């Protein structure tokens, strides 16, 4: 139990996937322009990360490890995640159009997201149990969402600010991301696993 709580805290704050480990920077900068899209993307990431970690963990433990095929893990994980997301998208469109409207456009975006692959790879590398892997995946995704939503809030305000010409656009966004990352440095060393 203690380890699970530690996992949650560590991967939301201390080892935040975006701001401390620098995974998933592309959607972090690309989808953070508006709060609405940021929230939609966050939900989709939480959803996909949890499912893909579950399936890749099973694949790793019951197929790759017994047959001594660890060198295949990256290829196999990419294959599984991509087809899984596609499958979920197809099923979701039929079963729940409302949920599909909310998550639909973000799902294909996430298919090849490095953060999702990183969660799957780290979960087996750190030799977490199935439960621990799931908690790890959800916390990492929540950490990602936290960073994304904070960034979206800042960028919405930034739209109205008088930014000097040389810093407008991508420049000020990258500077903001850097300062945000510095702020998260404050959690460094608080807790480790």
């Amino acid at each position: 139990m203690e380890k699970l709580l530690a996992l949650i805290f560590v991967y939301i704050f201390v080892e935040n996937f975006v701001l401390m480990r620098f995974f998933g920077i592309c959607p972090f900068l690309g989808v953070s322009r508006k709060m609405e899209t940021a929230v939609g993307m966050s939900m989709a990431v939480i959803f996909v990360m949890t499912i893909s970690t579950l399936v890749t963990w099973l694949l790793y433990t019951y197929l790759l490890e017994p047959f001594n095929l660890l060198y295949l893990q990256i290829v196999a994980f990419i294959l599984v995640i991509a087809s899984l997301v596609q499958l979920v998208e197809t099923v979701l469109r039929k079963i729940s159009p409302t949920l599909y409207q909310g998550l639909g456009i973000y799902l294909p975006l996430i298919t090849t997201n490095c953060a999702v692959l990183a969660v799957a790879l780290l979960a087996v590398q750190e030799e977490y149990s199935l439960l621990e892997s799931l908690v790890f995946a959800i916390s990492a995704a929540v950490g990602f969402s936290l960073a994304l939503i904070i960034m979206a809030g800042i960028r919405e305000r930034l739209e109205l600010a008088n930014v000097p010409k040389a810093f407008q656009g991508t420049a000020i966004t990258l500077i903001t991301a850097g300062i945000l990352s510095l702020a998260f440095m404050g959690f460094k060393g608080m807790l480790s696993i």
Partner: protein
Amino acid sequence: MNNMLYAVAVLGGTGIVFGVLLALASKYFAIESDPRVETIREILPGANCGACGYAGCSNYAEAVVEGKAPLNACIPGGSQCAREIAAVMGQSVEEVASLAAVVFCIGDREKAAERFIYHGIEDCAEAEKYCGGAKACPYGCLGLGNCVRACPFEAISMGAHGLPLVDLDKCNGCGLCREACPRKIIQILPKSEAGHLVLCNSHDRGKSVSRACTVGCTACRICVKACPREAIAIENNLAVIDLEKCDDCGECAKACPQGTIHPRRRVAEQSRARVG
């Protein structure tokens, strides 16, 4: 040797399993969509401006096929678009009037007084919150360009003296600028160059108007008397010209002591000259 076979079997097997699952899913979870939706969406301009009242072009196309939306609701697409949609749906349709935005304020920085120098956020709605904006006239254009940013067709640009210019070739009257303007200075009118307009938005009394702006309408009623066709009326301290009655004789523009009334032809020429 065995190792290689295992690798091929595991990866190939996983691939096949997921391939079959995807194929089954796309068969059993397929959604029947009307091919007309796609056709109509391709006819539409694709600007997703929302002038039809739907969230975007795709939503409007779906509503048309379901029979919920009128065929001629797409304002940017105009008559031609409506005709093409009608052909797809096998129905007839009325013509769509082509529309354009008109800025009802000519009080630029030289003509309209400012009460203070505004250094705040470059946004009309934000400036409005700060003591009601810098302009002495509480109805005049603040000139910070919310309409320019709102226009999806890049038809509005900010002129040199702080008033927006509408490029009539690009403007199709979707009305997003009217929504973006916190003072509702922009009106959407039929696209024509006939008729005269009172280019002022101020409902203040004459004395306050003349103190704030040299070209504002003071509701002096001279134009009402000058008009031979009784097309002009004073509504809430502002002269309004009924474009259906106006025959473009120009008596009102000659009579107006403030120079607020302009023929639409001149407005169009000026915007063309300055935009071009």
